């Protein structure tokens, strides 16, 4: 949504090296540099992170609640994707 406060951006922060970037909130900014600076000034005031992503909210495509069944339930019965599905002889130990 763009208005006189600039477009909306989503902010993702990486807490520690090696960890995934996690969504932490949104803000308004007029350009990329400002979005990045504002994200720093807003969402890392208390040492919350060491790296940031900013993404224009308009660039995000989200699934709908109506999709929930068709998107996610089919994965329920695919137990063969999990290691515990398989039998390994005890003698082999951990695999």
């Amino acid at each position, binding site marked *: 949504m763009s208005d006189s*406060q600039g477009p909306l951006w989503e902010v993702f922060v990486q807490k520690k090296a090696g960890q995934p970037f996690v969504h932490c909130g949104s803000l308004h900014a007029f350009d990329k540099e400002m979005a990045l600076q504002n994200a720093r000034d807003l969402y890392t005031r208390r040492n919350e992170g060491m790296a940031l992503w900013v993404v224009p909210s308009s660039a995000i495509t989200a699934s709908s609640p109506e999709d929930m069944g068709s998107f996610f339930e089919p994965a329920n019965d695919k137990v063969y994707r999990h290691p515990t599905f398989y039998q390994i002889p005890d003698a082999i130990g951990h695999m």
Partner: protein
Amino acid sequence: MENKTYEDLFEAKLAKNEMIEPKDWMPENYRKHLIRQVSQHAHSEIVGMLPEGNWITRAPSLRAKKVLLAKVQDEGGHGLYLYTAAETLGISRDELLDNLHTGKAKYSSIFNYPTLTWADIGAIGWLVDGAAIMNQVMLQRTSYGPYARAMVRICKEESFHQRQGYEIMTHLAFGTPEQKAMAQDAINRWWFPTMMMFGPPDAESPNSENAMKWRIKRETNDQLRQRFVNQTVPQVEYLGLTVPDPNLKWNEAKKGYDFSEPDWTEFKNVISGNGPCNKERLGARVKAHKDGAWVREAAAAYAKKQNQSIAA
């Protein structure tokens, strides 16, 4: 027919204590109620920057100055988290600000009282933020996801606010006689306005019933007010100061204090624009917005040029 199904799903989610998310179906009244409440909350944070901001340049020590600056900045941040939560309900920042600037939206009546001495900064941090935190802790479990997540973040950050306020009060209460008098005067002026922050008595609160039904609120105004008094009175006593309420008395039967109701006529007056600082507070917000217009236009124009030159 179909709406009925959606409504059933919505009700079922509430019953299971699950959160409602932006893309979920929600009754129009729920959406409206939330927009009103979340934006009112956001406006309160933003307008709330002003009474304390009034003392930033006059804070009496370097430490106090930094703390106050950081605190007022936090309030701006909290306003921002809440505005973005409100925006997920389909209202723009522009509309939200416009509603504030035209007086269509309300904000907490407490910020329409003046900060006259440095002790007021202590009283606001301790009493006003203390009351706000009570509300906010409850709202971490509110039914609307983005609102609840904003509140979790806010509560984490607010935890120093009340402590800094009480620290100021201890310096004053155990300081010189003038300082102690300043502290008592601040309590005298802020006590009842703070009590008003929890809203009208349950019996007369027009929005409470829906808010409870939808699990937006999880405790009533009167419950929160009682808890605040119970918690705060010993803190006043520790300072060797008094609560300006002749009817304040411990009630062993209910394991809580009996106390006087604030002056609800005054409350209605302040809410409807006739508090001591309503004009100044709103005026300051409108001025900042107007003075900032050319800055925002410049940033928009510059961004547009940059995008064109990237595209070219």
